[in-house]
């Protein structure tokens, strides 16, 4: 079975001044029916990749194939297969909630009665029925985003793109949206989601590509990415003093796999063998160790190991 999305040495340089090379040769394959996370910091090129897949950004080089259609040579046809939840609220402010859904269906060629039925079905399914006559400006951020998801799948696309779907949402709306995205998987819709929240990518994605500086650094399941760190446990050291030289000391401790800079100190990846914690504390003591946290590795750990910097800076 051909993949739902295939990106082939995709590149994008925005015309300047100054010209910006946002995406530098991305190769990716997203399988049909999977939820795929594109994880990276702001400015990594995630939105540009989504823009190119959804016909809104023209690649400078390379190819983007969605559902076996080249999105550059046949954008009008490719749009039938894709739904887009943009990063910002792009709801039609001159139309009601219901009309946003209804006219979207009309743009995709559904007849009047069909469009009405589909709009009502979506209102019910997304629990927006009691707001059907409201204008988008009256909706909270969470409801507006829910309506954008409903609108994006109104024409029953095979692939749904969500660009930073939970940015700016309160925790409750965020959880509600996660549930919706998980619902897409159950319906067999392929989902490509960009995020800079590692927990979001970890929780929702079947597979994740970590992207930085316009390049894909790694691509695998979240579990495999974390496993490949070779770290059973991560120790976050908070240090009050300068810690020059401490990383070298720590690397001598048996069981320490990797030492990288973390927020306010160092991040130590270990194989969690017995007695290791005490040795680390002992080594770090002279560097005014203030606090130490023991945790499971996360995708952020992976990101820090790959790039040497924190995901959100």
């Amino acid at each position, binding site marked *: 079975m051909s993949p739902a999305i295939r990106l082939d040495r995709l590149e994008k340089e*925005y015309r300047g001044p100054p010209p910006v090379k946002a995406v530098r040769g991305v190769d990716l394959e997203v399988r049909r029916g999977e939820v795929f996370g594109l994880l990276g910091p702001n400015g990594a090129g995630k939105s540009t990749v989504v*823009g190119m897949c*959804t*016909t*809104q*950004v*023209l690649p400078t080089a390379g190819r983007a194939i969605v559902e076996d259609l080249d999105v550059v040579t046949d*954008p*009008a*046809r490719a*749009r*039938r297969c*894709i739904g*887009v939840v*943009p990063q*910002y*609220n*792009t*709801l*039609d*402010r*001159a*139309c009601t909630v219901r*009309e*946003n859904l209804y*006219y*979207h269906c*009309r*743009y*995709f*060629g559904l007849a009047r009665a069909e469009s009405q039925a589909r709009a009502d079905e979506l209102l019910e399914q997304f629990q927006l029925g009691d707001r059907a006559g409201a204008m988008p400006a009256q909706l909270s951020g969470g409801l507006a985003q829910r309506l954008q998801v409903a*609108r994006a799948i109104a024409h029953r696309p095979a692939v749904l793109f969500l660009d930073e779907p939970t940015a700016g949402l309160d925790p409750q709306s965020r959880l509600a949206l996660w549930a919706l995205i998980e619902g897409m998987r159950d319906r067999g819709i392929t989902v490509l989601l960009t995020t800079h929240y590692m927990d979001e990518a970890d929780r929702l994605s079947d597979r994740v590509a970590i992207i930085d500086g316009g390049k894909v650094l790694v691509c695998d399941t979240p579990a495999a990415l974390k496993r490949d760190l070779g770290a059973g446990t991560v120790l976050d050291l908070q240090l009050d003093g300068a810690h020059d030289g401490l990383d070298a000391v720590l690397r001598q401790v048996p069981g320490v796999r990797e030492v990288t800079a973390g927020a306010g100190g160092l991040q130590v990846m270990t194989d969690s063998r017995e007695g290791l914690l005490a040795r680390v504390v002992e080594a770090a003591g002279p560097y005014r160790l203030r606090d130490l946290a023991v945790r499971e590795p996360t995708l952020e750990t992976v990101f820090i190991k790959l790039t040497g910097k924190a995901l959100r800076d």
Partner: protein
Amino acid sequence: MTESVRVRGYGRAFSGLILRDLRVLRRGLAPFVVRTIMNPLLSVFVFAYVFPKIGQGMRGAGAAGPSFATILIPGLVAMAMVFQGISAVALPLAIELGGTREIEDRILAPVPNWLVAMEKIVFGAVQGVLAGLAVFPVVYLVPATPVDIHVQSWPLLLVVVALASLGSGALGLALGTLVRPQQVGLMFALVLVPMTFLGCVYYPWAALHPIRWLQFGVLINPLVYMSEGLRAALTPELSHMPVLLVLSALVTATVLLSLAGIRAFRRRTIA
């Protein structure tokens, strides 16, 4: 997908876009009427009612010439159409493209990008025709002096109205895509005001004869041809530009503005 299926799909999407705009227009019908008739209403009230009453008469050539109202009407109808192109196409578009990006859902409709831009022109034209119709009773009924208009050739009138309204829609698309939201005020001062004052609205083009440089200078203004075309259709006895010149200039202006607008629309919507 065969070509006919594809074209039918485009047609459906296009009608969806038109239906959406009609819905929005229906919702804002009262503001539409107000913004459409205010300018012509006050123009005819001052120039064709107040001025004759207080003896500040403006007439066409000679005492036996046509009343000023007769000269004014085609120009005011043309101006109403151009205003509509600006307020119905350019202003919403400048906002949708600049601030809210709410046009994005229509950009993602399964049609070529230029068709979404064309829809803006066509719908601008529809509103232009409605605006022209709304203005007509006002400019006919308000003047104190007799108004002498009659249609000699309906086909000519229809062709002129169609071209003038499409031209207005295309002008609206071009301005809406080329002008940033923060430059809208400047656009009014630099484009709209000179266009209307130098658009042969208040005087026929032939009357500019004594100021030759101006008479030729105004020829870059598409409103000139709209006014003169409507003059040819509504007040055929009065001097007006040759019909063939008017029609070819209107076609040229519409095509050029459409091409510029569609190009700029694409540049603004696809990075």
